[in-house]
Structures are given as C-alpha cells and as structure tokens.
C-alpha cells in the first residue's frame, strides 16, 4: 500500500485552516447580526414604550388641566403643576336626611373622608370649598337613578347652604424628576407614573398663556437623536 503523500497532508491542514477561519467568520457574523437584531428590536420596543408613556403623560395632563380652571384650580410654580385633582362629582338626591347631605356620586375613584375636599355649588349660584369629614353609603336613600351614580351621605365642614352639586378633589402636583413623570398627592412622596428614562433637564412644564400648559418631554433613547415631544394642553372650563 502506498503511504499518504506530503501534498495530501498539507492540503488537509490548509483545508482545516480555511474551514476554521470560515467558521470563525460565520460565528462572528452571526454574533454581529444577533447583536444588531437585538439593538434594532430594543429600539423598536423602547420606541413603543416611549410612545406609550408619552401618550400617558399627555392624557394625564389633558385630563387634569382640562378639568380645572386656570389660576383657581391649577397653576405652575418651579416647573411643578399644582392642582386640585378632581376625582369625581355628585349632585343632590331627591330626599335629604336630617344630618349630612345625600348625594348621587360618580367618579374615577370613590370619595375619601379626611383626604378629599369638596367644591360645592349652592342654590344661590356660588361655589364654596368644604372638607369632607365623613361619608357613608346608604342604599336606602332615594336618589335619581342614573347609571354609574350611587348614593352617599357626605358630612362637610363647613356645611354648605342649599347645596346642589359638587366635585371632590385632592390636592396634588405633577413634575418631572429623577428621570420620570411623577405625581404627589397632598404632601406625600413623589410617585413615578412612568418608567425612568426622561431627560429631566430637557423635560419641562410651563405656562402657555393664561389657560394652557406647555409640556416638553425628552427621552433618553437607544438612538443618538433624543426623542422629544412638545405640546400644549388647554383648559376648557
């Protein structure tokens, strides 16, 4: 039998080197492509999240600013939007108890005694603010039947004269801080409403005329160009 020639062995070595190089190349390309895919997917997902959270901020500001009257219910100081955050309303029930005020109430959350205040509309056409000191739910109260409204008894201090309707609210404030859009109820801590990622130095809340709020939100993005959004919300009240 003839032994394997030198040329044949050398060819096998060259072939192995080429194969190894190609393998490395394939691995590298695959790694690169995976990394690019990851980056692109991250951008897509992050972009979607940024849009979602910007939409959330827009919705919150539009709702809060739209509910109140500029100067009376909300104002901006030091980049913070301070406001009466209205959470629901009620109107006088047909029958009134001897003590307290029977109201049909509807809101995005229930009224909370010792936390909420109430802006009361009286029969003389005036508005006054009272504190909600106590509330109770009684299904036995005769009230106009409107879907979504449920009867309650409110105890207000001071007690209003000839109350007809009311809005209950909490004191609150919004601002951009520590990378997020935050809300503070009363004198409590600032709670984030969005994920972090907002460039706080470039995110502002400022007055726009006498009845508007101009918001500017800039996000830290995975792309070199920072995604920035700016809009003005007007009160309609």
């Amino acid at each position, binding site marked *: 039998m003839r032994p394997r020639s030198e040329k044949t062995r050398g060819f096998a070595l060259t072939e192995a080197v080429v*194969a190894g190089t190609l393998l490395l190349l*394939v691995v590298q390309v*695959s790694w690169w*492509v*995976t990394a*690019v*895919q990851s980056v*692109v*997917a991250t951008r*897509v*997902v992050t*972009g*979607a999240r940024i*849009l*979602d959270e910007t*939409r959330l901020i827009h*919705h919150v500001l539009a*709702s809060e600013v739209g*509910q109140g*009257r500029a100067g009376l219910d909300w104002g901006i100081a030091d980049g913070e939007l301070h406001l009466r955050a*209205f*959470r*629901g*309303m009620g*109107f*006088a*029930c*047909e*029958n009134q108890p001897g003590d307290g005020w029977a109201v049909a109430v*509807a*809101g*995005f*959350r*229930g009224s909370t005694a010792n936390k909420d205040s109430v802006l009361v*509309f009286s*029969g*003389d*056409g*005036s*508005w006054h603010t009272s504190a909600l000191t106590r509330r109770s739910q009684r299904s036995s109260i005769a009230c*106009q*039947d*409107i*879907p*979504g409204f*449920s009867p309650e008894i409110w105890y207000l201090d001071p007690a209003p004269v*000839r109350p*007809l*309707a009311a*809005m209950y609210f909490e004191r609150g404030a919004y601002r951009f801080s520590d990378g997020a859009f935050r809300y503070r109820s009363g004198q409590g801590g600032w709670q984030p409403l969005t994920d972090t990622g907002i460039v706080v130095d470039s995110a502002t809340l400022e007055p726009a005329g006498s009845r508007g709020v101009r918001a500017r939100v800039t996000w830290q993005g995975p792309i070199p160009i920072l995604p920035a959004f700016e809009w003005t919300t007007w009160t*309609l*009240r």
Partner: protein
Amino acid sequence: MRVAGSPSRGEEGFAIVLALLALMVLAGIASAAVAAAVGQLRAAAMAQGVLMSRTGARAGVEATLESIRGTPASVVGGPAVELASGSHSTRGSWRVLGVRLSEEFHLFIGEGEMGGAVPMREARLVWWIDPEARVAAHRAVVEANSVSLAASAQLLSDSTLATRQGMPPCDHLPLLAQAFAGPAVPVSGNPPGPPEWGAGTDGAEFGDIRLGWYGGPMLGELADLDLSGGGPAPPGCPTCWAGLVFGNGPVRLAGDGAGVLIVIGDVTLGPGSSWTGLVLASGNVVIERAARVVGLVRGGGEVSVADGAVVDGSACAALQALKAATRLARPLPLRERSWVGPVPPAGAGR
C-alpha cells in the same frame, strides 16, 4: 471521483444555512416591529375613540344648549329626562340627560360613544328660567330703594294671586302660594340681593340690571321689542303680551302694554297709560297721574306713584308676562364655572 466545479460534501447547504439565519434575524426584527406597530395602532385608535366619544358628549351638551327652547320638562328631584340625542361623524352617537336640581338649576349629562370605543360622559350646570320661581323671588309688590306715594296713589297687595281678566289663575301654584299667600303681602320692600338683583361678584354685565342669570347685554339681545332710543311702542292692549320689552336709556310709555318691561335707566308711565306684567328698571320708575301697573315692580332707584295712579300687585300678571317672553325660556350655562366632573362612563366601577 470529484468533478471540478461541483460542491464537496462539506460545502453543501452552507449558503442555505446563512440565508436561513439571515431570514430568521430579519423575521425577528420584522415581527417585533409589526407587534410594536400594531400595539401603537391599537393604543392610538383607542385614544382616538375616547377623544371622539368625549368630544361627542361635549358637543351634545353644547348642541342641546343651542337648540332646546321652552320650559323644562323635568321636575325637581325627579328622574333624569332625555333632552336631545343625535349622531356625529359616521359611527358616533350622543345624547343628553337633564336632571333638575332645583327650580332653576339643572345638570346636563352628555353621553358620547364612538363606534364601540369607551363611551364618555361630560356634565354641565345650567340655569334655566322658571317663571314661577322668578315671580316667587319677589317679596313685595314694589321693590325699590325708596318709594314715593302721592296722596291719592294706591299700592295694592291684597289680590296678588287673584284671577284677572285674560289671565289664567295662579293661586294653585305652590311657589307662588308660598310667596304671596297670607294676609300680609308687603306693598313695598328693598330690592333683594344677588342673584335676584345686583351684580354682587357675578360680573359686570349684571351691574345695571339682571333677571336671574340674564344680564343687561343678554336681555338686550333677546328682546322681542327694543325701545332704546325711542323705538316703536308695544302693542296697545292690557293683555297683548309683547314678550320681553327692553330699553337702554330712559323710556316713556304713553299707552297700554303688557309683558316683561326691562329698562336700563329710568322708566316713566305717562298719564292714563298702563302696563300689565313685570317692570324692572335699574333707575327710577315714575308712574304718573292715573297710570296703572298690574303686576310687580322692581327698581334700582325710586318708585314714585302720582295722584290717581295705581300699582295693583299681581303675581299672576307677572307670571303670565314671563311665560309670554318665550325667548327667555332657554337653558343658559353658568357664566364662570359650569362644567363639572369628571364623570366616568356609565359602566365604570369605582
């Protein structure tokens, strides 16, 4: 035997592997992008639906305020009444419910829906004149800062609820019975405070004159007959109801007339003339010799009644005059704060 140009075993399918790998990567990116885009599209569509529903609810309330006329059908403490409904764009609908909170204050609740999106509600407080409540707000036949009576002048308050010729009876109406029944209806008294009379803090347009939440400028716009600058005289008949007769500046009447007479300035009823209904003037009211007023009078200055002149207090005449002033029978949003809320959708839990 290996043929030149044909792939060896180790090279078979290599390109396919690379192509599949690239396709998988591209498919992954594309699917992520599609998922994100679809999610954004849904969120945006939902936001659009909510916005259009809210706009529909708000527009419904506005449209109702602009279109509805007459006296309210709802009763105080009674169930909500559907005031109006309609559609907007191609898939949206709205309706407005009215709840009567008091004799003249109502809550309008607008409901808007847009093609299966979350329905939204908006509520607004409105004032809607009630003639009976308006008349019952008077506590005397003549309300003025001062009253001057000549020796043979008469102020009568003993038949304020009596039925008179050409007028339906009004003594059965509870608010009027409460306000004017009894043996001692005052013949005169001081003008009441806001919102019945005087501006208070309600705004400059109520400074000269007001009728509930109608200020001077709006009363001028709604007038059926404008006597400003010597306009045409009202129909000459004690029961020819002229509606709302308005004058900006001094007004002098020489004949007979009936209705709601509102004057920014002084008003004078000449000798032998008459007015049936309601007389409101920001200045003086001068009732000259043998002139006659059947109804109620309110003046911001002095009311002087000359010899032989009579003010025959009649709540029924004032009521009939207000009812005949049909252009006043319309809901009016409060001047300052009128939108109330938030009102969540009907099905939303708290």
